[in-house]
């Protein structure tokens, strides 16, 4: 049992301390918010029984925590000895040991050090405004994005274009800063150099020039094989420059579309009104294969030279006669035919027995006597009775006459006559020749290999069709007959660029090639870019740069 002087310090409305004294006699002092405590402290931050003050075995006063917490200098402690001047925090209260008057054992003062905050203000402080710092966030994000994009998509690519030293340094890298400007995939064939834009886009703000293309494509043919016509038709200083840019038809960055434009648009620009380009042109205006494509013209060989050709309209039937120098009735060479070895030797002939396709586009191997004729027609070269048989060689007629002179000099004129009437003349046209050594000769052969020399016909693309569905040769009795199908027969399956029902869409590029001189056989093989042209091109391009 001890006496304790409890000094409660409160503050009045003027903020001055007010002390109230109370003496308590007890075995122990309990502090807490519970009503049964000796020291009742009504504060929610305290426990019901927060702490207790009692004397220990040595007679010293100690404070011990019960359900609450005690703090000394900010450290939580389970208990402490109370000596004069010691300070212990009991929840929000500060407990201090005061000097004890004579009749009490212990004097303590209690002061509410941490007042309970005002609920409303406290709650308001814990209520956050929505989207605080929005404007600064927006400003910073705007700045960040703008700077980032401007740097990567604008400043670096422009620096590469405008500052030569940067350009030089970047050229060594696998891709340039301007890669971000690429609008689409590059076609596979250009990919190996396409990662550096300047390989094609050589001058900023200028469209891709032909010079860039010509760096590699030096052998590309012009549109018109005849260089004089090419120049005059396009009113061009040079036979390439001034016609049309390569890139107008060859659009890059559009993969997987083909690099060459496939529509009629570019062709019709000129061929829709060809007189506007060249007043002397004899060509007809064309817009569409179905609508207004003119009749086909067939190319006939007229002489030994490659330029000896004549182009004849298919409708001009009177002139549509092939003067090949051969006598070959197709009707006798199709279906079941009599072979050379007696009545039982019947052979079945089809087109491909003689016409052997060659290559991807199925052009045809030239026919030869040795490969195609001799298996049936060997007898035409045999002369004389069985026991004295002479076989003359096929080929040059001089060799034939030499053979006759050597093996049958006596029968020379009769055998020569026989060949002239039957043997050679069985297949060939014969020309009379009044000289004694060479009384006649075989007419030279002008066999057409390319009827549509201005277009390209791909037999491979038509391999699903029967030969005779286009080439009506079963009834042909003469080799002068021309069995090349006309436009109407094409139109049975094909149509214009806007196809009719159940017709195949066909545009200019289906049959024609812009760089035609590649294909115009024998027209002008020299119409290719030579070193001179490259120099002229480069000088023109350089002038533009300056």
């Amino acid at each position: 049992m001890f006496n304790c002087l409890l000094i409660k310090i409160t503050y009045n409305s003027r903020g001055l301390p007010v002390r109230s004294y109370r003496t308590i006699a007890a075995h122990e002092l309990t502090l807490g918010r519970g009503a049964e405590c000796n020291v009742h402290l009504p504060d929610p931050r305290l426990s019901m029984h927060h702490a207790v003050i009692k004397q220990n075995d040595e007679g010293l006063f100690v404070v011990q925590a019960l359900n609450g917490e005690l703090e000394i200098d900010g450290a939580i402690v389970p208990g402490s000895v109370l000596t004069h001047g010691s300070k212990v925090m009991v929840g929000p209260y500060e407990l201090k040991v005061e000097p004890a008057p004579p009749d009490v054992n212990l004097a303590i003062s209690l002061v509410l050090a941490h007042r309970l905050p005002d609920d409303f203000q406290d709650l308001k402080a814990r209520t956050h405004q929505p989207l605080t710092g929005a404007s600064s966030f927006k400003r910073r994000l705007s700045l960040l994005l703008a700077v980032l994009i401007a740097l990567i998509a604008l400043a670096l690519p422009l620096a590469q274009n405008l500052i030569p030293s940067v350009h030089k340094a970047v050229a060594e890298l696998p891709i340039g800063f301007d890669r971000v400007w690429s609008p689409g995939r590059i076609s596979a064939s250009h990919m190996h150099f396409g990662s550096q834009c300047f390989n094609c886009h050589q001058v900023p703000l200028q469209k891709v020039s032909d010079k860039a293309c010509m760096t590699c494509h030096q052998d590309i043919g012009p549109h018109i094989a005849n260089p004089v016509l090419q120049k005059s038709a396009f009113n061009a200083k040079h036979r390439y420059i001034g016609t049309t840019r390569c890139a107008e038809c060859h659009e890059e960055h559009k993969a997987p579309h083909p690099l060459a434009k496939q529509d009629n648009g570019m062709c019709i620009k000129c061929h829709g009104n060809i007189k506007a380009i060249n007043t002397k042109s004899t060509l007809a205006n064309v817009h569409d294969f179905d609508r207004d494509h003119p009749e086909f013209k067939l190319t006939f060989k007229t002489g030994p030279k490659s330029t000896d050709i004549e182009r004849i309209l298919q409708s001009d039937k009177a002139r549509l006669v092939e003067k090949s120098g051969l006598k070959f009735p197709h009707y006798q060479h199709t279906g079941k035919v009599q072979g050379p070895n007696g009545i039982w030797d019947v052979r079945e002939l089809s087109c491909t027995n003689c016409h052997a396709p060659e290559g991807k586009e199925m052009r045809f191997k030239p026919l030869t006597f040795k490969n195609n004729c001799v298996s049936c027609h060997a007898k035409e070269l045999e002369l004389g009775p069985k026991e004295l048989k002479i076989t003359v060689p096929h080929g040059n007629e001089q060799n034939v006459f030499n053979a006759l002179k050597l093996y049958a000099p006596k029968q020379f004129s009769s055998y020569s006559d026989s060949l002239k009437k039957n043997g050679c003349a069985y297949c060939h046209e014969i020309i009379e020749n009044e000289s004694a050594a060479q009384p006649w000769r075989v007419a030279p052969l002008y066999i057409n290999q390319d009827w549509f020399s201005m277009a390209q016909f791909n037999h491979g693309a038509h391999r699903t069709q029967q030969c005779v569905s286009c080439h009506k040769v079963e009834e042909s009795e003469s080799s002068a007959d021309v069995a090349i199908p006309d436009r109407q027969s094409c139109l049975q399956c094909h149509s214009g660029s806007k196809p009719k029902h159940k017709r195949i869409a066909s545009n200019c590029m289906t049959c024609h090639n812009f760089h035609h001189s590649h294909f115009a056989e024998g027209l002008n093989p020299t119409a290719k870019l030579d070193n001179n042209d490259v120099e002229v091109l480069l000088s023109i391009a350089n002038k533009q740069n300056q």
Partner: protein
Amino acid sequence: MQRGNIFDYKNYRYFKIAVVVILIAFAAYLIFEPAVGHYGGSVLGYGLGTVSALMVLWMAWYGVRKRRYRSSGSTQSWLSAHIYLGTAMTVLVTLHSGFHYGFNIHTLAYGLLLVVVASGFFGNYTYMIYPRQMSENMGEDSLDSLLLRIAEADKLARQIALVMPDAINNTVSRACRETSIGLGLIDQLRGYQPNCPSAQAVDDLTAMANSLTPDQRKLHRELYTIMVRRLSLVKRARQDLMYRARLGIWLYLHVPFTIALLVAMTAHIIAVFVYW
């Protein structure tokens, strides 16, 4: 007569214009198809691109225009046009792209535009839906009056809890001390706070009801009523903050991405003409 809102402004004038613009663009897209397919560099592509670029600039100008009090036309009319023509412009830009996308500045500009438009749509949605829900949620109250009522409930609850066992007193005073409203951006947008001390207190009180003396039980019932009412007030305050946050959040994207879009669009146009 009640004035219409921005959507039916002048009897849907801008809606009609937008529909016409979209139809014209679609018709042109179907009629003029280049041989290599649609792309931004065809004649139609340049046309659509030019119109779209001008429209983007005009849309962005709205941001400047609405901060000026003295300007031509009513802001309501501008906003109506901003919304409808902005939607039409998105269609034009998509057609301009020809549906070619890649890892480049052109697609970046398109992507930024989509972010701007999408955030704009969300903003539109919030302004259509939330103001009504906000007034339903708050009734006559303001946020401050809600907080005041919560604070009063705090005081009452604390007084009752003072004579209750420690566990109850602790959970109540923790609820009073630690409940916060709209703590972070995510919580504000969700309108919900996980581990909320107030909700925790209500749960705890339910659990603790059994271990009380008959006297305390009566007080407990009273305390429980107060805490439940207090929780509903807290939830309403959070809901209010959620609406206000959602009404504002779309501008976080709309404005900065518009700036980014303007830069990217400039880069896109420069790139196209530097490398013709």
